[in-house]
């Protein structure tokens, strides 16, 4: 029996009610609070915050709750809110050498000014499931010391730069940095826009691309010169004041990759840079971003363009998971009209095919007789 596709409105309303019910789950289990997500699922919160590109942990936690733990859906919620916010201006470049570091490691020097500081890391844990956690047993309190205020820790790349062994990083320009959320992205894109796209880009996508460069698809010989995690001050220039005004602090993860470069007739042999910077604690993302940034500089550095990770249009057009998930999932929307058009053509082609075959068969029969 044919029933017209009526009642979309009621169907949508009912679906939303069921979604809310599923989100809540078994009502005999206490509801998850935003504070619990904020305090105990911090790395999920940080991923949503960085790929949502809005520094607000509480909103990110709320989005995770609302999205039933689907992080890309949560990122989408944050993005759709962010887009409605007014822009007051741009901050001054953050100074990561003045970061209050919670973690700082270098893979290129055994010891260095400022030292190696492991901080909270999974790196040397054994990945054995911990039954104690299932029983809500409280962990032993960790001893922490407040980092000394205003203790500048020089960046490894600055130390290399002093000897001219690494290319300069260009420094800050007078030009306002581009913003791909306020203007359409055109190619070739400047490094500012590329880095913005990578910082907002999907961790999984960048991870796979970064990994591909390590496996020979645009090999860049990377060294993790430094990874640091900590808080930096956000400063703005206020017209009429001749000093910058700090308006708050944010936590960021920074990764500086040092990569090989032979040099040329004009340029002395020097290391080159790949850079990653992400809101919150997102170390894997920062490292993958630095690998991708370096690979995308291939044209600028006169390298052969052979691999996907070097292809700016390919990488930047597909790094955004909100765009990607939208277009992939839109295949769920009705396509009856287009499908009907294909069906009609296919039936016609089939009819012609069958006709031809029948003709051929009768020709053969005639020839045989």
């Amino acid at each position, binding site marked *: 029996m044919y029933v017209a596709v*009526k009642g979309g409105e009621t169907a949508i309303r009912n679906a939303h009610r069921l979604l809310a019910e599923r989100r809540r789950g078994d009502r005999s289990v206490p509801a998850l609070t935003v504070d619990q997500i904020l305090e105990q699922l911090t790395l999920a919160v940080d991923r949503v915050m960085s790929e949502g590109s809005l520094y607000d942990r509480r909103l990110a936690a709320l989005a995770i709750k609302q999205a039933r733990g689907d992080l890309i859906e949560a990122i989408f919620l944050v993005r759709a809110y962010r887009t409605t916010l007014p822009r007051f201006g741009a901050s001054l470049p953050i100074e990561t050498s003045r970061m209050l570091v919670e973690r700082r490691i270098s893979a290129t020097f055994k010891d260095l000014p400022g030292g190696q500081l492991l901080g909270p890391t999974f790196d040397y844990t054994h990945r054995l499931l911990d039954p104690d956690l299932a029983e809500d047993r409280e962990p032993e309190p960790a001893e922490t010391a407040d980092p000394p205020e205003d203790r500048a820790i020089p960046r490894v790349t600055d130390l290399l730069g002093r000897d001219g062994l690494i290319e300069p990083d260009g420094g800050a320009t007078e030009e306002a940095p581009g913003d791909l959320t306020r203007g*359409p992205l055109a190619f070739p894109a400047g490094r500012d826009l590329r880095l913005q796209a990578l910082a907002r880009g999907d961790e999984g996508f960048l991870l796979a691309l970064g990994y591909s460069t390590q496996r020979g698809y645009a090999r860049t010989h990377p060294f993790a010169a430094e990874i640091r995690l900590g808080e930096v001050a956000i400063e703005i220039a206020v017209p009429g004041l001749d000093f910058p005004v700090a308006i708050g602090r944010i936590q960021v993860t920074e990764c500086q990759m040092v990569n090989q470069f032979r040099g040329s007739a004009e340029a002395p042999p020097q290391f080159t840079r790949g850079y990653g910077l992400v809101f919150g604690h997102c170390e894997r993302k920062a490292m993958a971003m630095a690998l991708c940034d370096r690979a995308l500089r291939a044209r600028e550095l006169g390298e052969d363009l052979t691999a996907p990770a070097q292809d700016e249009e390919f990488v930047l057009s597909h790094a955004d998971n909100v765009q990607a998930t939208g277009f992939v999932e*839109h295949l769920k929307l009705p396509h009856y*009209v287009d499908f009907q058009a294909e069906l009609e053509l296919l039936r016609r082609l089939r009819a012609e095919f069958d006709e031809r075959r029948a003709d051929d068969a009768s020709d053969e029969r005639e020839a045989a007789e």
Partner: protein
Amino acid sequence: MSAPAVPAAYNFAYLDEQTKRMIRRAILKAVAIPGYQVPFASREMPMPYGWGTGGVQVTAAIIGADDVLKVIDQGADDTTNAVSIRAFFAKTAGVATTTRTADATIIQTRHRIPETALKAGQILVFQVPIPEPLRFLEPRETETRTMHALEEYGLMHVKLYEDIARHGHIATTYAYPVKVEGRYVMDPSPIPKFDNPKLGDSPALQLFGAGREKRIYAIPPHTRVESLDFEDHPFEVQRFAEPCGLCGATGAYLDEVILDDRGNRLFVCSDTDFCEERRRAGHCGAKAAAMEPTS
């Protein structure tokens, strides 16, 4: 219908006025250069990319308090996404909505052009997934923009020719490329090629919005629009062997509804408003009596 109150937290029709102005500028440029894809600073919208964010932004930028909005998806007013977008504007702009093509001032559509001829003063807003007609021949934006600039469309003709060589027909059945006012080759969005003849010389303004791809383009009223073809393989539209089962219309685009697993099927108008109007006027299809919707 009484207009629901506009929520205080968002501007009229959701987008802020600065964004609307930016989009209107892109629309004006698009109207000035028919068929040319104008890049615009597409915003993130509260519905997913692929769900019509481009069309929604265009509609939000042009809609006024006294507009009457119709939204269709696959020709139907009551498919879920059409319902959702109509509800979005009813909520954020408080505008009147309609399902009647003749009563609407703005019609947002996905994949169809209404059967009822449009009038001067009406605006048809298309939701576009991939605005670049050359995209599947050349994936790079830098290349395709150059090809448009140089009016270098040979590749498209080669593709159509290869179809003929392989299948005996041009095998493009929807999103069939057109040339606008003798200059730009344009993707009409995934409408069936059945609808292509309605694009040309229309008294209505036709606007195309692609949100994810950040492009807007337009066909101003009474513009020449030709579907690409060859002299010996002229463009032709789909024809259906039987009339609409509900209203008896011939020459309308039909959806195929599978009735059971024994091969019984029903062909009905994809344009639900057109079909209902005809039935109200007393037209009756062969299967109308048996197939009245139960709701």
